[in-house]
């Protein structure tokens, strides 16, 4: 009789403990679902933050690139050439100025422009002083999309 009581007691304890495990496990499953949802929201928030920071970083880089390009452009102009106009668009650079001679322009200005732009052309107009007014148009020609190169 005592043995039966002991066995029954062990059996009941095991049932209660097992049910407790199941109960806690189910509660934790719900908590885990909430944490997974929270993780999804946090990842979205982090992606959003990074997207904003990437945009700001791109702005900073573009600013630096453009300002450096304009500074370098002015650095290209030799002292002997006087500039009256510089117009820079997305793919064209127009320079107007005065040069003592065409050769000086070709050697000191057109050569570096050819190194940067896809094509460059200049027209000259002789002045009474013997110097030349020039208009230089340089273009960057983007290759068409789908080009193998």
């Amino acid at each position, binding site marked *: 009789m005592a043995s039966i009581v002991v066995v029954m007691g062990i059996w009941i304890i095991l049932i209660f403990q097992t049910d407790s495990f199941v109960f806690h496990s189910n509660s934790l499953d719900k908590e885990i679902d909430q944490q997974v949802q929270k993780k999804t929201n946090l990842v979205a928030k982090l992606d959003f933050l990074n997207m904003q920071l990437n945009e*700001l970083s791109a702005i900073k880089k*573009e600013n630096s690139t453009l300002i450096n390009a304009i500074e370098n452009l002015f650095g290209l102009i030799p002292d002997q050439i006087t500039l009256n106009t510089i117009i820079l668009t997305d793919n064209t650079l127009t320079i107007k100025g005065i040069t003592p001679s065409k050769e000086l322009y070709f050697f000191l200005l057109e050569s570096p422009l050819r190194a940067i732009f896809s094509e460059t052309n200049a027209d000259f107009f002789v002045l009474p002083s013997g110097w030349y007014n020039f208009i230089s148009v340089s273009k960057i020609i983007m290759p068409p999309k789908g080009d193998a190169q």
Partner: protein
Amino acid sequence: MAEYIVRNLIFIVIFLLLAFYAFANIILPRIQDYKVKRDDLRHTQLVYTKETERNTQLNLSIDKIQSKNQALLELLQSPPSIKSIQGLAQTFFDVTSVKSAGEKYTKDFSFKIYKIEGTTTTPQTFFDFTKKFEQSFPSASIILPFSIEKENPLDETLKITVHIQIVQMR
């Protein structure tokens, strides 16, 4: 006496058989079930701890990024006005005109473009302005087209035309 002994032996055998039966078919499966449920709970607790820890780390990362870049991120929500940019430009060259030059949109951002015209006597003032502009307005950029022109060859006055783009969250 012999009968007593035999009867007790029979009871002992029956008892042992019953005990074996109880252990094998009642207690043992229950113990197995107990172990399975206990391991399941441990595993679930581990998963919960990992998920909670991961979310804590994510939260920390987000807080760190936000606090480190708070000023920059606020600029995207409340961008600088063109008036403030005009004010800065005015300290470097004489601003003659500020006009809206359009807007662009992407899924997340809007871009307002302005055209600033002014005059100066040396291009260096424009470069000085650009350096200060970069530092002062990180959410704005100088974009093309850009021009510096000497309208009158007999005059040292240069006309500057520069386009400014201000970005904002949509």
